[in-house]
């Protein structure tokens, strides 16, 4: 089984799809994302049903700090771009570049999380909590689920970068980077919807 031991420099053009294991991984990951769409769809539906139920607390438009949210959005979208650049580097078999782009992706992800935590703490002080109203429950569950996904992605990609220092880019590690970047795009895409449905629609009342 030479497949597991392809040496750097001899990788095929699309190493993530060169082995059956790789193809299985990529296909399975797309399926996983299909299911995740239903997961977030259900959370969005719940949020939309409950977003006006503020129970006497602050409303969305009173609460949201759009500059912070806009900055977070910008950061996350940029991180999607850097992960694409990482995959391009992978296809050109440039391990170092790939590691660098993914490291930047991780840092941007961390920055996003920092802003999100800052935002949550602010809202908390304004009396907007998981327990304060149905709006609060739905907000923190939806946005928090997304934040949890970002956190998972950050840890996962960091772990992949770490192992790529030892293992390099092989037919085993390439599919991992590929699906991690798919995941990252998906998390970004969800954020675009959150930005629209939660924040923009929250500001216009």
């Amino acid at each position, binding site marked *: *089984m*030479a497949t*597991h*031991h392809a040496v750097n420099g001899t990788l095929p053009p699309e190493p993530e799809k060169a082995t*059956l294991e790789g*193809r*299985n991984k990529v*296909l*399975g990951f797309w*399926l*996983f994302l*299909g*299911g*995740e769409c*239903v*997961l977030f769809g*259900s*959370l969005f*539906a*719940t949020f939309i*049903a*409950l977003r006006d*139920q*503020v*129970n006497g607390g602050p409303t969305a438009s009173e609460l949201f700090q759009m500059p912070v949210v806009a900055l977070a959005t910008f950061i996350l979208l940029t991180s999607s771009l850097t992960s694409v650049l990482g995959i391009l580097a992978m296809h050109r078999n440039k391990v170092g570049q790939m590691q660098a782009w993914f490291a930047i992706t991780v840092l941007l992800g961390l920055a996003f999380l920092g802003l999100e935590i800052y935002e949550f703490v602010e809202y908390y002080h304004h009396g907007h909590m*998981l*327990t*304060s*109203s*149905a*709006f*609060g*429950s*739905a907000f923190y*569950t939806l946005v928090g689920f997304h934040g949890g996904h970002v956190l998972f992605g950050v840890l996962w990609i960091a*772990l*992949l970068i770490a*192992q790529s220092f030892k*293992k390099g880019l092989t037919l*085993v590690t390439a599919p*991992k980077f590929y699906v991690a970047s798919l995941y990252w795009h998906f998390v970004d895409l969800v954020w675009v919807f959150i930005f629209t449905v939660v924040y923009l629609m929250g500001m216009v009342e």
Partner: protein
Amino acid sequence: MSGQVTYAGRKGLWDWLTTVDHKKIGILYLIAGGIFFLLGGLEAILIRIQLMYPNYDFVGGSTFNELITMHGTTMIFLAAMPIIFALMNAVVPLQIGARDVAYPFINALGFWLFFFGGLLLNLSWFLGGAPDAGWTAYPPLSSGHDFSDQGVDFYVIGLQIAGIGTWIGGINFLATIVNMRAPGMTYMRMPLFTWATFVTSLLILFAFPAITVSLVLLMFDRLFGANFFDVNAGGNVIIWQHLFWVFGHPEVYILILPAFGIISEVVSTFAKKRLFGYSAMVFATVLIGFLGFMVWAHHMFTVGMGPIANALFGVATMLIAVPTGIKIFNWLFTMWGGQIRFTTANLFATGFIPTFVMGGTTGVMLSVPPADYQYHDSYFVVAHFHYVIVGGLVFGLFAGLYYWWPKMFGKKLNETLGKWNFWLFFIGFHLTFFPQHFLGLMGMPRRVYTYQADTGLDLGNFISTIGAFGMGLGTIVLLINIIVSIRKGEPAGADPWDGRTLEWAIPSPAPEYNFAQTPLVRGLDALWTEKMSGNGKMLPAEPLGEIHMPSPSVLPIIMSIGLFIAGFGFMYHNIPVIIGGMAITFICMIIRSLVDDHGYHVKPKELEDGEKGVKA
């Protein structure tokens, strides 16, 4: 360097705890699902004894509520689904000519998650009482602590863990069927059971996330003080009903489609005929799967969605009867003029057809919204879904079990005992559930633990309970049959039924690598094609060579134990336990990511031995 990583066979319990072999995982599913089936059956008998006489005080109201909740939950999530997964694991890779599933590790993980989720749920009996809000767990009954005790926490966490297991299991089968088919096994040559598995897995993929979210919301309300279902704080209980049924209705098709698949295989094998209308059957399966997502609100006609929504969902529901009817006729036409053998498997398949038609008929009756205002939450609904789930799915599973048992274990089940099994269960079933239609029409509500004497409900309930004993006896006969078969069953040989599909082309039980050489498929009913136009053996698609196998792993069970521990942490608000349990799971994930699995190779010599029938 290939073949250098050799593998020392694991033995006994350790082998079972670490296996990633789909055939062994299938057996694990069968054992665990079987145990839960007995447990759920016991609960059913207790329910029926409580309802045997009017004003009877056998278990009383609270325990009754726990029993109906646990009976429904156990049967659907912990008995029916796992036994379906048992057969899928045992059969689907063989039917498509694959050596393995796409993700052997995930497959094992799916099993262990289901197992520990189910265990957690059932431990509630010993830790302060089982959930008692019904298998549908409608809030506010389930959401606050006003109406329900800690039992519902077990429901929420246990089902969450088990559900994730089922979900990844579904992804595994999808990828397996898409990527792992043998050369020549085109989609339109796949056996119907494989097709059913494919569509079922799609339903699992898209339906289970909805219950994941439902359970998360309920969990947050119960454990962290969120307000999703707390009307005082702006919550809305109808959200649960929608999310639950967005999952719940596809779930009932997740249950029945595999049974459709099994019946198709059994009917055609024992009629010695090609399945009538193969492509129509495939089309109907896909259509049922699709429509299954459009009809969830027929469970909510009486909630007050308004006439337009009710009418649309009513019509959409009736539509499903069309592809279902296609299937019924195709089975009948398959039998028509065939050389029918009434083996036990075929008896169950034949018994399935009229029984399921009755369940479908009451289903269409229920789909008429104004009529449903009368039927809803009455025993009529109970009768309906037991006709489709027991008379449909369970008959199908029994048929499948008798049919594929030889392939799984290498020995046949006894046919005489099998006939006792069938007739006791079949008659018991109709005695139990047929009167329930009329009980419902006479106004007996479901989920109420007793009724007044002389209201016309006595006789029906009494007969129903007697019938339940009959089903119990039938199940005991099955158990005896299994013991007899293990002890002195006749060896089955590769092809005991004169089969048509690929699984009958290899020894029973299948060697760990399934096919020594990947077969070349030359038509629908691959083996039958060779029996008719070849020499009765599959042509190989590759030369004899070393076979690469994935290594066993202990990580799946440890990961599941981690979540199991964390689940208890959540329920008892114990943060160190939560962190500890999650840490176990995450560390396993990290190990899995860091340590590459090189697998091992089965050498040609072992291959030759395998061919001579030595168990590999």
